[in-house]
């Protein structure tokens, strides 16, 4: 009896975290559904939106992963100056607010962009980014870095001895080592990116070229904002969760939850390098860096003109991000320590949640008790923490499992007890993935426009919201400056957190 009580208390933080995630995802959906009156159900348009949503998400996931393979391979077997910086820079698009990234992409691929200017000079007909191709291009821009990291992790998980053995036997490395590795790691990467693209709204719409590119999230938007048809919104949100659940089931039959990201700073000694590595690295660097450079070029001149309100909003963003990061890390750690089905659940539910349903549901939940405006920032903290949970979990959970399998017997034999094991063994050994997860959560939270837009008054503006409002008030130059500030802050926060974990805990 005493033991089971202790076990319950030990897993209490994990249950609390899962409860928070469930409340913000399925709970908000329930709140919306309960408030609904009889709606008109799903229309033909909704069904074509569902079809398009699945197709574009699948295409984006497949394209991202296929392109990531040669890039990850090049990174896995090449050591060069600035490799660490490149790996970090690769993470930048992932944390950019959508509108900023889209404008950056257009500066390169748009009608008046660099690419078409180049084509024009060569006398070639210009290309149009708009349409399904543009949607996939933008999603690849956002998610290729993530795919590279996930797959690079797989490459680095192949022990160096096997490469040596394969080289000595003159065996085909691709078939003997790399294909089996990809079979284990690619499905997980496909799933994550598929889920992220499933809930895409602004990207798909802005670059989609028209109503053919309608996603489920847009249909939800319309149902809530124009029709006030909460029943239909809830129905569509259920469809979104169902799609997510199906994808998750398929992927988990093939592969376990895999980790990503930390410890990518080593290469594998190999004997089969190809010149193509440099081509791939150059191409992906150009693809990812040029749009970022255009954002900088456009925004840096306006940086000195940013008013105090923008800096106040920036400060608020940092505070929100710090709070969200604390919550995410504590929750993800608790869940990783507990393990089991909760990890799988929490690891994917937030990815499938509709931001608008979440916001509306929160509004309905909060409104009877307090004025939602007064809790705008705490609500944002909670939502940002939950949204980052899948990523933190994917980082921490496999690392905790590794530490347990390596040092669990020793800790048990030494009778360290669970707190001492956490303090003396797990936390010190988790430093790298924890720091990386902290950096990622900080950056995601700083860059997220998210739910605060539904609640906040000017006194509670975060930086992305302030930037968006500048754009809405014709102040494009100031907005471009704010975008650069946002980019610096997100990358800076990431770098500060991540570099804290880079020192070797085992040295000296």
């Amino acid at each position, binding site marked *: 009896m005493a033991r089971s009580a202790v076990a319950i208390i030990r897993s209490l933080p994990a249950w609390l975290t899962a409860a*928070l995630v469930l*409340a913000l995802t399925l709970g908000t959906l329930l709140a919306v559904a309960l408030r609904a009156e009889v709606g008109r159900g799903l229309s033909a*348009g909704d069904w074509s939106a569902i079809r398009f949503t699945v197709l574009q998400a699948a295409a984006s996931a497949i394209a991202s992963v296929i392109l990531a393979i040669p890039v990850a391979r090049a990174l896995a077997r090449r050591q060069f100056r600035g490799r660490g910086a490149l790996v970090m820079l690769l993470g930048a698009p992932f944390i950019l607010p959508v*509108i900023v990234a*889209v*404008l950056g992409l*257009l*500066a390169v691929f*748009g*009608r*008046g962009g660099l690419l078409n200017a180049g084509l024009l000079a060569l006398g070639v007909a210009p290309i*149009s980014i*708009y349409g399904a191709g543009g949607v996939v291009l933008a999603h690849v821009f956002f998610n290729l870095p993530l795919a590279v990291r996930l797959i690079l992790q797989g490459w680095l998980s192949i022990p160096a001895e096997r490469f040596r053995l394969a080289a000595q036997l003159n065996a085909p490395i691709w078939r003997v080592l790399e294909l089996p590795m990809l079979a284990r790691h690619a499905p997980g990467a496909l799933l994550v990116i598929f889920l992220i693209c499933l809930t895409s*709204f*602004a990207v798909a*719409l*802005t*670059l*989609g*070229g*028209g*109503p*053919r590119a309608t996603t489920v999230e*847009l249909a939800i*938007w*319309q149902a*809530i*904002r*124009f029709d*006030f048809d909460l029943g239909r919104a809830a129905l569509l949100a259920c469809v979104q969760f169902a799609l997510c659940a199906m994808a998750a089931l398929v992927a988990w039959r093939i592969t376990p939850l895999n980790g990503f990201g930390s410890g990518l700073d080593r290469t594998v000694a190999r004997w089969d390098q190809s010149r193509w590595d440099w081509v791939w690295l150059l191409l992906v660097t150009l693809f990812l860096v040029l749009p970022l450079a255009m954002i900088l070029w456009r925004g840096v001149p306006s940086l000195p003109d940013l*008013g105090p*309100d923008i800096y106040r909003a920036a400060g608020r963003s940092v505070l929100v991000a710090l709070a969200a990061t604390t919550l995410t890390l504590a929750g993800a750690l608790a869940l990783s320590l507990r393990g089991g089905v909760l990890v799988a659940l929490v690891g994917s539910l937030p990815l499938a949640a509709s931001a608008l349903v979440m916001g*509306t549901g929160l*509004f*309905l*939940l*909060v*409104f*009877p*008790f*307090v*004025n939602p405006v*007064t*809790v705008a920032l*705490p*609500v944002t*903290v*909670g939502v940002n923490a939950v949204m980052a949970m899948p990523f933190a979990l994917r980082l921490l959970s496999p690392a905790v499992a590794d530490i347990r399998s390596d040092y669990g017997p020793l800790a048990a034999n030494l009778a360290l007890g669970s707190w001492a094991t956490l303090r003396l063994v797990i936390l010190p050994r988790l430093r790298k993935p924890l720091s990386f997860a902290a950096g990622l959560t900080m950056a995601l939270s700083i860059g997220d426009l998210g739910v605060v*837009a*539904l609640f*906040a*008054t*000017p006194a509670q503006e975060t930086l992305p919201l302030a930037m*968006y*409002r500048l*754009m*809405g*008030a*014709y102040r*494009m130059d100031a907005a471009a400056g704010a975008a650069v500030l946002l980019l610096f802050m997100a990358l800076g926060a990431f770098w500060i957190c991540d570099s804290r974990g880079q020192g070797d805990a085992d040295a000296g």
Partner: protein
Amino acid sequence: MKNLFSSLGLSSVGAILCASTAIAQTPTLNVLTYDSFTSEWGPGPAIEAAFEAECACDLVFTGAGDGAALLARLQLEGTRTDADIVLGLDTNLTAAARDTGLFAPHGVTADLTLPVAWDDDTFLPFDWGYLAFVANKDTPAVASFRALADSDLKIVIQDPRSSTPGLGLLMWVYASEGYAAPQIWADLADNIVTVTPGWTEAYNLFLEGEADAVLSYTTSPAYHLIAEEDDSKTSWGFDAGNYLQVEVAAKLAGTDQPALADQFMAFITSPGFQDVIPETNWMYPATDVSLPGGFDTLTVPSKGLLLSSQDAADLRDDLVETWRAALSQ
């Protein structure tokens, strides 16, 4: 959930409580409006100062997204809302707003300068504008949807399912072309570069050179002219007329400050409110106040088109479906 949020929100609730005890003697008027109205460059701050100077009250603007979000917010809150006034709905939304039964007659009589007759006793216009395609002056102008569809011009528009100007465009094409509207949309398809979720994205794409013209307002060039001293932008008046966007305010029937709310409704048509509108909201004022320099250079369409709010509500689903079908080919 409740406990979590109340404990997380404790500090901000505390701050609100402190603030409200300090001003407990003065009554508060809560006005729910769209975001950009309350921003530091919007009309909010100047109007707040002007009204508070004469009302001995505290005027509080609360922003909630755009006009459509405003109505959704009100529908979520229902009769429990704290708002006394709602400001910023447009005529595409007033039928749905009226159906909520939350509003009371405004009782204001004023000389409105709208290009169309206005006799609504619940929704009071505070500003208005013509929808128009905004372009650079060196772009060859067109004067009808037919001419636009037949040209090689590239345009960016907003999605009628997520944006108020986007919805206004559907009404515009219908009001000026009638039964030919589906064919116009089919022929416009190859002119449309893309459809954006909102005005912000569309206007940015236009400024970045992604399109020759963007759906906005005839007053948009005034911003570039007055705030940026850039006279390169213009807007196109169409021969059959341009659609009107009329922004309205209304009083909540359940207000706990009825006298103050009436005072503010009357204030809306006074110069203290109207003078602020042109250079902060970049729209035309609703009454006859003098316009700032630069507004005289704006395109004035030959005619203002406006469907009644009831027609707009009835037609909306059909128009959206027609639009979707035509552009999905």
